[in-house]
C-alpha cells in the first residue's frame, strides 16, 4: 500500500493522523481509497472533475498531473495545498 502524507491544513479532517496507508495501483485509486477512509477529505481533495485546482499531488517526490500515473506499493504520496506568495 502507498503511504499518503496528510498536510497540516487537512489534519482536522483526519483527526490529526499524518500518514494514511491507501491501496491502489495509480493516483486515482489511491485517492479513492483515501477518501473511503476519510470521507471529509472528499470535498477538500477532489471534485467531480478530479483533483481540485488548489491541490497538487506528488508521488515519491515528483509532482503528478495525471491521475492515471502509476503508484508503486511502497510509494509515498504527498497532498500539497497550493499557495503562491506575494
Amino acid at each position: 500500500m502507498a503511504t499518503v502524507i496528510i498536510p497540516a491544513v487537512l489534519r482536522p479532517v483526519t483527526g490529526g493522523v499524518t500518514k494514511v496507508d491507501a491501496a491502489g495501483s495509480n493516483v486515482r485509486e489511491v485517492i479513492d481509497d483515501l477518501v473511503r477512509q476519510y470521507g471529509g477529505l472528499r470535498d477538500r481533495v477532489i471534485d467531480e472533475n478530479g483533483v481540485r485546482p488548489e491541490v497538487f499531488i506528488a508521488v515519491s517526490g515528483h509532482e503528478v498531473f495525471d491521475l492515471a500515473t502509476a503508484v508503486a506499493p511502497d510509494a509515498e504520496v504527498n497532498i500539497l495545498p497550493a499557495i503562491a506568495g506575494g
Partner: protein
Amino acid sequence: MVMADKPQYRVIGTRPLRPDAIDKVTGRAQYGADTRQSGMLRGYVLRSPHAHANIRSIDTSKALAYPGVKAVITAADFCLPGQTVADLPDLTTNILAGSKVYYHGQAVAAVAAISDEVAREAARLIDVDYEVLQPVLDVREAMLPGAPVLHEAMRTRTPEGPGAEPSNIVAHAVVVFGDPEAALADCDVVVEGDFSTRMVHQGYIEPQAATAMWNPDGQVTIWTAHQGSFPARQATATILNHPSSKIKVVLTEIGGGFGGKIAVYLEPVAAMLSKKTGHPVKLQMDRVDVFEGTGPTPGTSIRAKLGATKDGNFKVYMADMAYENGAYAGTAANYATMVATACYDIEHVRLDGYDVVVNKPRTQDYRAPSSPAAAFAMEQLVDQMAEKLNMDPEKLRLQNSSREGTRGSMGMPFARIGHEEIVQAALDSDHYNSPLEGPNRGRGTASGYWFNVGLRSSVNVTVQPDGTVALSVGSTDLSGTRTSLAMQLAETIGVDFEDVKAAVVDTDSVGYNDVTAGSRVTFGTGMATYEAGKNLIAAMKERLATTWNVPADDIQFEAGKFSSPDGSKSGTFKEIAQLVVGRGPGLTVSGSVNAGFLQGGGFAHHIVDVEVDPDTGKVQILRYTAIQDVGTAIHPAYVEGQLQGGAVQGIGWALNEEYFYDDNGRMLNSSFLDYRMPTTLDVPMIDTILVEVPNPLHPYGVRGVGEPPIVPPLAAIANAVAHATGVRQYQLPMSPRRILQTTGKIEE
C-alpha cells in the same frame, strides 16, 4: 557565481534595456488611475471609523438626493433574492461591510457622482448607525477565553475536530516529525526565545484603482492594476453573481504589488456602480485608504526552541506560532508551518500554527508570506546556538543545511537546491572576510526560504510578416517579466531579443493565467513561453515542408536555423518566417502549462553590518550583501534588483515599520509621513551575489527570485544589533525607542 552545469546561452544572461523603460521614466505609462472613459463618473468609498461595530442601519437617502450623485450602493446591493447582508460571504463583506464592521477603514458604502468632490461630499451624508463593540488587537489576547469575539459562528479547526465554543482562533495546525519532546531532553544545548513582529504593509507606490463599464447587454469591462486579471475576473464574477465569461479584465501598468494586489477591493464596487448608473465608474484609493482598507501582512507571536548536540548538530526545533489573520479567516500560520524549518535538516520537529482573527484589516500576502517572521525566530536561535557553541554561525548553518533529499517542513524531499552553496558563498565573500571594526558595531547573518510555485499559464505567439514575433502574455508584469519572457522566447526560437515584442493582454485575448505571485511568472509563464516557442518551430516546419517539398520531421532546427535534410536549403528563423508567413497566411500559436506547485524552492542568505547609536538608539546599516540561489538569472540586472528590493523592504520591516493603533483600534500612522519606510538616505548600496544552481524543473533552470530576499533581513539585522549592543532583540520593529528600551536607556 555560476555552477559548472549551467549551459551557455545566447540571449539568456544578457542585460537588454527593458522595453517599458522609456514610458515609465517619462510618465507616459498608463497606470490604474490613468484610465479615462467617455462619460465616466467618479466613485468614492465611505469607510468605517470604528474597529469593531454592528451596523444597525444605513440611510443613503440624503446622499442620493445630493446634486450630481448618480448612485449609492451598500452590501445590500450584492444580495441575491431572499438573502440578507448577514448571509453574504467574507469575500463580499470585505469590499462592502454587511451586518458588522471588523476593522477601522473597512468599506461600508460607495457613491458614484459627476466628480470626485461631489462623491466625497455626498458620502458624508450617508447615515450609518453603529453599535460600537470592544475591539481586540493583539494576537495572543485574541486567543484568550473571554476575548471579544469577531465571528460568532467561528469554531477553531483542530486535529481533534472543531471547537465547541466561538473563538477567534481560526485553526490550529500541527506538524510533527520524529519525537521532539524526547529528543529535546537528549540535547546538549537548547536555546529559546519569545519573538514578536508587527503588522506591516507592502508599501507599493501605486494605490489601488479600478474602472468598470457595465454595458446594457451584460458585458462588463474592468480596467485595473491588479496582480492577476483572471483571478480578479473570477472574484468579481463571484461577488456580482455574474458569469465570468461576460467580464473582461484589462490590466494597466501596475506600480508594485508584492502580494497586496491579489485581492479585489474596488473592481466589484465599480462594476455595481456602473450597472446602476449606466456609465463607466472609476474608483481610486488614496494612501490612507491603502493603509487602512487593504491587506497588510500579519503581526506574529512565535515561541521557539532549538536543540543541538555539543558538536553542533541540530536535533530538535519546536515553535508555537500565532499569526494575525486580520478581520477574516486566513491561513498565514499554516503557511509558516510549511516553511519554518526548510533551511535545515532537523529530525525532530513540532510546529503549532495558530491562525487568529483580530480587529485589523484582512491580511494579504507580502513577498514570501509568513516566512520572514518564522525566520526571525529560527535564525536568531541559530545565531544564539553558534554563540553557545562558540562556532562560526555560517559554518553551523553549513553543517546543518538542507540539501537535495532533505525533507522540508512538508515532509517532501527537496530536489536540487542551493542553500549550501549560498552559505558557502557567504563564507567566501569579501564582505564576510572583511573585519568590522569600531565600537557599537555588529555583523549579522541569516538564511531564508520560499517555495516558489509554477501554477497555470498561457501565452500566444504571433509571427509578423517581417519575421519578428509578438508575444501576448496574460500575466501581470510586476517586475519586468515581459522582458524575461521575451528573452526565453528569443532563446527558444533563435532570434534576437529585439525581434520579440511582448505585451500584456486582456482576459479575452489569451488562455488562463493564475495570479502573478509566488515568483512564478518567469518560471511558470516562462514554461508556457518555451512551449509556445517549441510549438512555433513545429508549425514553421510544417509550412516549410510544403515549400521545400520534404517531410516536416526531417527538417532540422538548430542554433536558430532551419535546414533541409541534405543541407541544400537553410535559413534563419527570421528568413524562414518572411518566407512562410510574410508570403502566406498569418501564424499564431499558443503555449499553455500547469507548472504545478513545486518549483524547486528558493533560498537566500544575507550579511549585514550595523552601527547602533547608544544615545539615540538609531540603527545605521553600514554594509549589506544579499546572496541567493537564483537558478538561472535570465536578466541578471532584474534579478539583482529583486534581491536589493527585498532586502530594503526587509530593512524597513526590521527597523521602523509597524501599524500603530490606539486603544479603540484606530490606526494612527496611515501616511508615509508617520509610517516610516526606508528611503535612499537610510540604506547603503545593497551588494548582491547571484549563485546559479539551475533548477531541474525548468527548461532553462529558472527559479523564482522575488520572494526569498525579504526573508533573511529581519533576523540578520537582529543578529547584527545583538552583536553590536550585547542585547538580543525579540521584538520588531527595532526602532530607536525599542533599542533604548532594551538597552536600558529608557523604561519599557
